[in-house]
Structure formats: structure tokens, C-alpha cells
């Protein structure tokens, strides 16, 4: 049974096993990740009436997403996996959105974008589903102004654009399950920040005398 966590937009938590969603809980509050994370994990476990020990893997969305919220889910996933000594399966939050979309009747080229603040969008583009049922990412994840997102070379004329405003941990969990059993590619420990920390080096101390 996989515990899946994504806090790249709101806070979403789910329990999935063998391709089925057992429980799902979510808060859309884009500033309340720290407040919600514990309650949502607990509520999923309670809903399925299992002990935390029943969780065999933790899946986590690595973004892209606004950093402060994103990190809450990743920190929680790290800690949960550590506490039980179980594997952490890291995946792209956009890939979860794409899987969700393809599983709901959409096919062909797809562009997923999410809010990145400062008038920019995080984006990833896809070509469909692979043999193991995971989205085939052909571009991104990237960061761009809305009109400046590079379109995929193939199928640009039939491209569908999805401006997503939520990520479902259930689909993230299902994705992680497929990636794990089909030996698909999981991500490394570095979150998909796509922006360097905001620092400008000053030239030195300001003069106080003229």
C-alpha cells in the first residue's frame, strides 16, 4: 500500500494499492500546507482503518510548485518513509496531472501548466502514455511566461493545454506504482524548484557619510 503526498499546489494525500485508490484527502488552501499535512495523512489512514505499518512505500510529488508549500509535503514524505524504513518513490507532480488527464479520455499531445507566481507558469509537455501506462514527457518541466512556453515539435496543431489548479495524490500514487513495477524512471532527491534562491548580492555596505 502506497501513501502518496503532493503539496505542489494544495495539499493532497492518498492511499493506493494494486491500481486502486483506497482513500484520498485534500486541502486546496495554497498557504496551509503545514497546517493540513498531518491531518490529511491521519485521515487517510483512519478511513482505510489501517495502522501506519501497513504502508509499504511513500510516493511524493517533487513539484514543480511554489517552494514553501512544496517542501512541506516532501519533508513529511521523507519523515514518514524514514520512520518506517520504507522506500520513497519521487515523481513529477505534472506527470501525475498528465496521468489523471489521459486516464479521463484525453489522448495525444498535452501541455500541462501550473501557477508559478510572478506572472510565470510551470510547464511540462506530453505525447501520450507509455507501455507501462506512465505519461511520456517530451518537454519540461520548465518555467516561462504564459506566451513563451515552447511547444512540442510534433502535434502542436492538436495540442491540448491544461491549466491545472490541483494535483491529485491518488494519481501520483498510481503513477508511482506503475513506475515502480514497470521500472520507469523515478526522480532524485532534489525538488523541482526550477528557480534559484532569490538573492541579489549587494555591492557592499552603504556609505553613511558623504
Amino acid at each position: 500500500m502506497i501513501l502518496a503526498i503532493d503539496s505542489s499546489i494544495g495539499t493532497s494525500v492518498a492511499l493506493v494499492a494494486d491500481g486502486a485508490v483506497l482513500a484520498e484527502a485534500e486541502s486546496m488552501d495554497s498557504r496551509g500546507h503545514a497546517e493540513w499535512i498531518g491531518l490529511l495523512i491521519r485521515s487517510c489512514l483512519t478511513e482505510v482503518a489501517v495502522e501506519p505499518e501497513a504502508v509499504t512505500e511513500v510516493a511524493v510529488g517533487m513539484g514543480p510548485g511554489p517552494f514553501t508549500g512544496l517542501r512541506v509535503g516532501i519533508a513529511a514524505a521523507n519523515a514518514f518513509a524514514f520512520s518506517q524504513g520504507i522506500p520513497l518513490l519521487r515523481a513529477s507532480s505534472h506527470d501525475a496531472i498528465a496521468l489523471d488527464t489521459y486516464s479521463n479520455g484525453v489522448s495525444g499531445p498535452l501541455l500541462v501548466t501550473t501557477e508559478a507566481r510572478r506572472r510565470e507558469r510551470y510547464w511540462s509537455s506530453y505525447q501520450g502514455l507509455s507501455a507501462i501506462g506512465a505519461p511520456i514527457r517530451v518537454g519540461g518541466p520548465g518555467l516561462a511566461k504564459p506566451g513563451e512556453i515552447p511547444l512540442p515539435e510534433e502535434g502542436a496543431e492538436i495540442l491540448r493545454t491544461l491549466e491545472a489548479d490541483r494535483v491529485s495524490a491518488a494519481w501520483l500514487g498510481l503513477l508511482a506504482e506503475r513506475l515502480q513495477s514497470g521500472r520507469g524512471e523515478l526522480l532524485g532527491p532534489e525538488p523541482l524548484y526550477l528557480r534559484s534562491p532569490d538573492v541579489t548580492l549587494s555591492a557592499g555596505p552603504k556609505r553613511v557619510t558623504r
Partner: protein
Amino acid sequence: MNRKDPLVLGIETSCDETGIGIVRGDRLLANVIASSMEEHARYGGVVPEIAARAHLEALTPSLSQALSEAKIELSEIDAVAVTSGPGLAGALMVGIGAAKALAVALAKPVYAVNHLVGHIGADVLSGDPIEFPTVALLVSGGHTSLLLVRDLVSDVELLGETIDDAAGEAFDKIARILGLPYPGGPQIDLAASGSDPNKIRFPRGLSLPKDLEKHRYDFSFSGLKTAVARHVETAETPDVGAIAAGFREAVVDVLLTKALAACRDLEVPRLLLGGGVVANARLRGEAELRCAKEKVELRIPPLSLCTDNGAMIAALAAQLIMAGFEPSNLSFGADSTLPVTEIQPDRAD
């Protein structure tokens, strides 16, 4: 839950140190600190986003190290404790996310605690803790607070605090003005050694009679910073040693004068020091001299417990547990400006 001698894991991520501490009652079992200080050096101060990223990276390795140092299994702990404020919001949230997941995964209670009160809580691990009430002076790169602690778990009052820079921040800024590297504290100490602290007299902030009326226990270091900068700019050949010594003297003097005034005014003959600036040898030395003169009992926890750390957070939570307080609700968040009166925010009723 074992309320007599609780085994508590504490998580501290309010600034640039990732601290994981483990205590059993009032005994220290582990105190692991991972600092991102070097990553901030080229910016001359803590960059919040860099600190938050570093916390996420350091968290599980530090946890693992603390457990092996304490020679315990995670499943043995009675409670998880975490700093929920004050501090950098994004940094605090990393610790909170991890603490809550641990608590749920282990089916253990979680205690959200106040970072400043945690600094005082560190002293209970010394084996011979201070009596209450006590005056406490907490000085670091993030805070400069003078507190009256009537009871560690239930009654802490803010007497005064800095109205601009924190004392540690002032050391960093002056070091920059003098062309010395970050962090400024040890560098200023080094530059000042052997120089006469009274050769150049810099102003003591908020110490004039008219300021004392309104800001008896408050601190200000921005005027001092400007005075040093002006001196450096106008002197023909600035005497770095004398400037460093004079600056350090001004900071130490104002900190101790106000702290001891509080001891006298409130008739509390005890002073507890905490925070990273306590590493400053001149501050410790002067504190010992002046406290002895005024017959004030001085307490300084070991340095590893003065800088930000998880053990002090665990220690405070253990005191709360032993005093019978309930855990926090699982819904607490980060509060970057949490007042010191809120020792355990969001306690369940």
C-alpha cells in the same frame, strides 16, 4: 505516554541550523546540528530560501545520526517536539511537516513549542538547572530578547527586545564594514583581541534617560552600526582592532547593563544567557564579572545548547509533558512572530 521520564525527539528548523535532539526527561541523549552557515557566507547574512532548502536536505540524515547517538529506536519515543515559531516561516514549515508525519507514522503525540522559551529550556539539561524566577537574555543572529521567566512551562514575559537589528546581526554587519568575513562574531572577537576596548567609545543604543523611559529593556543596534561606519569612513587609517574592540564593548555593555537592571528592578538575582552570541568570550567574561559584583547568579548552558538546537526543543517539551500538559492539536502552523508568552501554541484542551 510516559509522563515521568518521557523520551522526546525535538526538531528545530527556525533559522539556519537543522537541529535534531533527543532527551529522556531532563537528560540529554543526542544533539545533532547541521548548519547551512557556509552557504550564507557570501551573502553576509542568512538567506531564508537557502536555509529552507538546506533543512530539507539535512533532515533525515540528522534524524538518523541522532538516533544512533542516543542508541534508541525511533519507535521507542514518547513524543515528537517541534519549533513552530518564532523564526523564518519557510524554514519552520520544513520541521513542522516532518514532525507531523513522524507523529502520525509513530502514532505519538506532537508538541509545538516556542523557540525562545526553548533556549531557556536548554538549561534543564545541565544537571543543575536554574531556579525560577529568572531573568533571561537571549542573543543570537535572529533575536535579542530580555525575558522574565517565572515558570518555564507556564509563565514567561517579554521585558524587552531589539527594535531593529539582532545583536548577532550587528556583529555580521560590522564585520562587513571592517572587511571581515561572515559570520561576524568570531571575526570581531579575533580582530578585537589585544586592543583597548575603551580607545574608541561608540554609542550605547536606547540608554539615554529619555529613551529609557519608553525602552527601559529594549535594544537598538542600528545607531551603533552607523556610528562605526561613520568612524571607518572618516578615519584616515582606521584602527580595525580598536574599532572591533570598541564596537564589541558597546554591544556587551548595553546587553549586560539592561539585563542587570532588570534583575535589580524585579528583585530577581538570577540571569540566564542563551543564543549563539553567548559564544562571544567578552560577553561571557563581562557577564561573570558584573554578575559577581551584583550578587546575581549567572547561568550559561554549554555552547552546543546555546546555539539553535533540537535538544532544547525536546527538553522544553519534556518539561511540558512532565508538568501534565496535553499535546498540541495536529493543525498548528508556523508562526514567524510567535510571542514568547505562547510557550506551547495550539495546545489541545
